[in-house]
């Protein structure tokens, strides 16, 4: 394998990691509160606002049902507004982040809804404020599930980040398309795929291990 090719793969991997890291971080920071809101704002819940809940839920569903590749194209004006360009690694971060937000929100909602309602009642009976219930009960108890949700988010992002390669987004997907596909280099394609598989494996097993450490529910005496 030529040193040039190695350089290319190294650069593409770093680009992918950069896109995934920024989109994952920003998307999760925005998606987490939205998920918490979705899980706690139904009728008779901690922050009852059923109408807002319905509207946010609809928006999340709409964003999630838009195919990613269409989302990338559709928000080009917005991307340009934010980054000044519509191609390259930096530009790709915008649609990746936008796609991450509703994804994280739904996963967080599911994780929080899974917390035993009896714990909420117990905390209310102790005189906890709704914010204390969120921080000390809901987030604490759903930590294993939230860890797995974030792991799943990062894994999906790695896949999506390869997709933005198709529209000039940079990273491993871009490399695969330009060298592997358009220049008929199956060896490059293969290396790109292997690197992606290794990345996903690493992320998944780290997430699983962390979630297991947080999970105190099934420890034997």
């Amino acid at each position: 394998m030529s040193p040039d090719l190695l350089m290319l793969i190294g650069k593409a991997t770093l680009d992918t990691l950069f896109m995934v890291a920024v989109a994952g971080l920003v998307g999760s920071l925005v998606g987490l509160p939205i998920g918490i809101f979705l899980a706690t704002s139904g009728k008779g819940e901690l922050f009852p606002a059923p109408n807002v809940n319905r509207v946010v839920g609809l928006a999340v569903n709409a964003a999630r049902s838009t195919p990613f590749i269409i989302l990338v194209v559709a928000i080009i004006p917005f991307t340009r507004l934010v980054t000044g360009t519509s191609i390259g690694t930096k530009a790709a971060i915008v649609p990746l982040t936008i796609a991450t937000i509703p994804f994280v929100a739904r996963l967080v909602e599911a994780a929080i809804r899974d917390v035993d309602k009896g714990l909420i009642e117990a905390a209310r009976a102790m005189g906890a404020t709704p914010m204390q219930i969120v921080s000390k009960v809901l987030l604490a108890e759903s930590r294993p599930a939230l860890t797995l949700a974030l792991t799943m988010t990062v894994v999906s992002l790695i896949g999506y980040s390869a997709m933005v390669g198709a529209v000039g987004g940079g990273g491993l997907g871009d490399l695969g398309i330009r060298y592997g596909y358009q220049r008929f280099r199956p060896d490059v394609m293969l290396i790109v795929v292997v690197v992606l598989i290794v990345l996903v494996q690493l992320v998944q097993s780290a997430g699983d291990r962390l979630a297991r450490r947080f999970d105190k529910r099934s420890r034997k005496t």
Partner: protein
Amino acid sequence: MTNPVAEISPKDAAVVFESVSKRFAASGANGAFTALDNVSLTVARGSITGIIGRSGAGKSTLIRLVNGLEKPSSGRVLVDGVDVGALDEAGLRSLRRSVGMIFQHFNLLSSRTVFGNVALPLEIAGMDRGAIEARVRPLLDLVGLADKHGRYPAELSGGQKQRVGIARALATEPKLLLSDEATSALDPETTQAILALLRRINAELGLTVLLITHEMEVVKAVTSDVAVIDRGEIIERGHTFDVFTHPRHGTTRALLSGLPGSKLPEAIARGLKPEAAAGDRVVVRLTFFGAAAERPLISQLIKSIGAEVNIIAGTIDEIGGRPYGSLVVAYGGDAETSGKAERFFAENGLVTEVLGHVA
């Protein structure tokens, strides 16, 4: 019969329910539903008061009114003289910090250790770490879990989990403890141990305990006062001993019949007929307590009616620390014998209930 519950003056009352009703609006497939119907009840300070009823009788709703987890549709609930319904959210939170609560399924945080669970209400109240440490340690000693402070709930037995729940409920030094079916998920032996702990807390800390249960065993073992609730209404109330020995309502009797010793042997129960035929014997349940429990009643009964008496079932037990006995006997059902027996029962102050007739 006297009604001791009604005699408690408001200043001796830990909790007062004043004509409380609770209706749930219709939602989805469920129609509107009245959970509590005009309930009035007083819980004496320092007592262990039980509310017993079948599931769906309204007892869960009733206990949740005390710390404002539910709001009454009408009527008032007073805790230490304060109208719970009139409190705003901040007022409710400070009330809840002075009322402990324990639950059927313990409701412990799986992500926190024993120590962390007991510390939770103190963290919520904004106490600093040092003060929390100083408060939690003696509580873990009190419930006998000092050596388990670093364990997680998943590593504990049901009884140990409920001990953590009790320590957690006591953390903010409440004057009132609410117990929501706290022993229903436990085996009989563990139930007795948890009830003994509640009794000890009641005696040592002077804590008022209001507990709801569907088990007469629990009421018998631990309460001084009891109210029986059925379909949202209080149908009977008084000192536990009086209610057990003089049950006036069918539902109370039905609940009592679950106690060991109060069930007739199956073969006899099957042969029981409501109407007497000639030559039948009458089957009577005698309940005796106090001085009567110490006299040779059966031999006196045989002498005074001049006929044979069969003992079919019987139990001697203790309710609220007072001995009481229940005997099921059968004797000749002819008018003369029955008349003599009734006079004997009346003279000796025995409570009787005719269960039926056997050939």
